[in-house]
């Protein structure tokens, strides 16, 4: 058994609220999770479940109020700016919105060179690395001289992936990286993630609201519901034959792209909901 690369234990995150002496609102109520080297862990849940907040806490972008985050056997729960810069070599991010995550005023080359230059890579070396990165994500070599707006959503997301790969990190936090993309683009970008992982051995925490997407890319899957992880296990099991009632509801809710199967699933879902309602009524 390999030691986990990332270990999150009993993590609590709470945001302060506006107003005098109002208590902060807790988003995560003590979640635990681990990611092994070279593994993809999918994190699935609906809006407001806290899945994005968990990703942001690992990146140091959310206020942690309890629990611990360990990376490479070092505590990174609350590190200062200079440690965070060192950590930037190892933990990177791909955001959901390929339009908002690239500065519209910078050329692709400068966007990709930014993390390299921060780590003290020379101008020439950075330029060579940028060309290599563009090739890795399937963009033409001359893409570097252009601005983000000249690219489609899928291509921008490739740029964002290239930026995440620039420093050869050990872990990439992917926050809904394909949910803004068209169906056919989505499939290709997901395959790019898998291919990159096989080539570089990078681990990924893959946050998504879509069970099918998570199933496609993840070795293991965690399901979040209202700030708690309700189920965490092998991807093939969690996304097909889940234990927890909420995961089952989630699975049943997604319509199958096949009229006959969908009709069956719809009937099954209704029966399940009715049984649940009855169970609740009996409990009362």
């Amino acid at each position: 058994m390999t030691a986990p690369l990332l270990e999150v234990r009993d993590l609590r995150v709470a945001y302060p609220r506006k107003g005098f002496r109002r208590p902060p609102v807790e988003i995560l109520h003590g979640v635990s999770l681990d990611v092994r080297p070279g593994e993809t862990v999918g994190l699935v849940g609906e809006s407001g479940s806290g899945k994005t907040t968990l990703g942001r806490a690992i990146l140091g972008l959310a206020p942690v109020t309890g629990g611990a985050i360990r990376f490479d056997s070092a505590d990174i729960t609350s590190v200062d700016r200079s440690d965070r810069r060192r950590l930037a070599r190892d933990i990177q991010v791909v955001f959901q919105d390929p339009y908002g995550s690239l500065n519209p005023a910078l050329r692709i080359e400068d966007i990709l060179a930014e993390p390299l230059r921060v780590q003290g890579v020379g101008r020439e070396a950075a330029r060579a690395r940028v060309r290599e990165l563009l090739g890795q994500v399937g963009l033409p070599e001359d893409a570097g001289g252009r601005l983000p707006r000249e690219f489609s959503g899928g291509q921008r997301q490739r740029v964002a992936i290239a930026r995440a790969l620039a420093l050869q990190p050990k872990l990439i936090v992917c926050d809904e990286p394909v949910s803004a993309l068209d169906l056919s683009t989505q499939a290709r970008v997901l395959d790019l993630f898998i291919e990159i992982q096989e080539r570089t051995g990078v681990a990924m925490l893959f946050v998504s609201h879509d069970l099918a997407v998570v199933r496609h890319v993840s070795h293991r899957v965690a399901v979040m519901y209202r700030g708690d992880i309700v189920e965490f296990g092998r991807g093939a099991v969690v996304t097909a034959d889940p234990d927890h009632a909420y995961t089952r509801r989630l699975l049943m809710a997604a319509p199958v792209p096949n009229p006959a199967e969908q009709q069956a699933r719809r009937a099954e879902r209704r029966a399940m909901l009715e049984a649940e309602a009855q169970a609740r009524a009996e409990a009362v």
Partner: protein
Amino acid sequence: MTTPTTQALATARRRDRPSVFRAVLRNPLGAASLIVIALIVLISVLAPLIAPYDPAYVDITAANVPPGADGHLLGADASGRDVLSRLLVAGQLTLSGAAVTVVISVLLGVIVGLVSGYFGKTFDLVAGWISDLVLVLPSKIVLVALFAVIGPNTLVTMAVLGVMVAPQFYRLVRNLVMGVKNELYVDAARVSGLSDAAIIGKHVLFAVRAPIIIQAAFVAGIAVVIQAGLEFIGLGDPNTPTWGGMLQDAFLAMYTAPTMLLWPGLAIGLFVAACVLLGNAVRDALEGTDAALNVSAAPSTSTTAVRTVQKPVVIDDPADEDVLLRVDDLSVGYPDGDGGVKRVVESVSFSIRPGEVLGVVGESGSGKSQTAFAILGLLPSNGRVTGGRILFEGRELDPLTGARRLRGTRVAYIPQEPMSNLDPAYRIGAQLMEPLVVVSRLSRAAARERALSLLERVGIADPKRVFDSYPHEISGGMAQRVLIAGAIAGEPDLIIADEPTTALDVTVQAEILDILRDLQRERGMAMMLVTHNFGVVADLCDRVVVMQTGRVVEAGSVEAIFEAPQHPYTAMLLGSILDGGPARPDYEDDEHVSAPAEKEVAL
């Protein structure tokens, strides 16, 4: 592949990168005001060289001579000093005073605004208080009082004015920075380990620079006006010529030499107008003018109008008898800015029978929503139906307004973003009742009854509470139920739903789909369902139209499309679906650690 083709690359390179500076120059007003400002600055700098006289040289015999006399091109003032020379030299002090104001206010306002907006907290609070305090001080009175203390010192006075207008920059920059700092690219820079100073310098300052330039242009104009005003009431330096001081001299000699008022007035007016127009030109360049688009939108209207007259209103095709909506050869275009029309929907034809659910599927840019908007008469103001016909029950609809007149009674619309289609200022109940009272002519009590029963019908457990709620008090799924209740209120024959569940969580989506299906069956309504989700299609639709880049590539029954897609694009889309696909194989840990680069995972 998403890798662009060589052709796409070529067009991308050919297209000009619209830089703001170039856009300002291309705007005649912007170019003219830039030239005027540059000329005034240049002349002022060179004034000592080009002025025909020493501005202080007094020739008592020439007092108040009219323009052109005795070699005084613009005449001479009451003391016999050459007006032209004084006018030229006066620019120096006037403009440097304005420059001092601009530099001080920009430096102070922008730096404090950046820190305040980026870091917030106590600094922001205190800076806000000070800024408000300075804003409420009447600046002219402060400057007049200042004169009593320091005497006539134009540059110091203008520096104090700079401090007084700094809050304008402070507020502007602070608010812009608060918006920018939450952008994902700033988060990405933080994750990359950039220091705060580097993030501000590289990402934040870049986003706020243009509004600062606009504001600075306005402030320069205001500074010149205030300075002239102070000098006009005698609070200037009597030994150095300034435009305001010249105005004062001219005012005293207004009856003997009226033209003397003209020259400093013109200089001030010209410079201030140029500053304000330059500010406007920069703003227009940033916003991107759409005036050009609107001009060329007109021609397509006339062609469609002619078409309406030519075609008979009712067509006697026997197959049409049981068709509710027929779209025939429909094209929709937008002006492309070069005088041409960019077609987003091209020759699209399909029909919907009563009680039938038609799915219109495609990716972004396929024209599926544009088709729906054209039918509803909801195209954006510069979009036009450029060809084809839309028939409802065999009657041709006006291509300009589509089904606008049928909306609410025969045709209803369910939008993608439920929240933005509810007015935040009114309670849900009032918004549901209004069409019932106005269109269906129910009494208020009957409308209330009906609205409540509609809310109950769309699965809202506590209709009274929702009825009395404001839109911000309910969830997105609830808002979509409210809109569905509104859509069925007029008992329409056709519902056009544009991605009705895309913005919703999957569990909520399932509930909304249930409601739509039940209502559709129960009332025998036809539905046109625009979606990108094949699961939704499989759940609801009887027939499917597949669209790609504005054209219909395939149409057929839902079973036929899923089982035997004819067009390669349909097959590709179906092939991209992940639902029901294989899961990723289990993680094999040891291999990853030992040799990550060489490992091979069977997929």
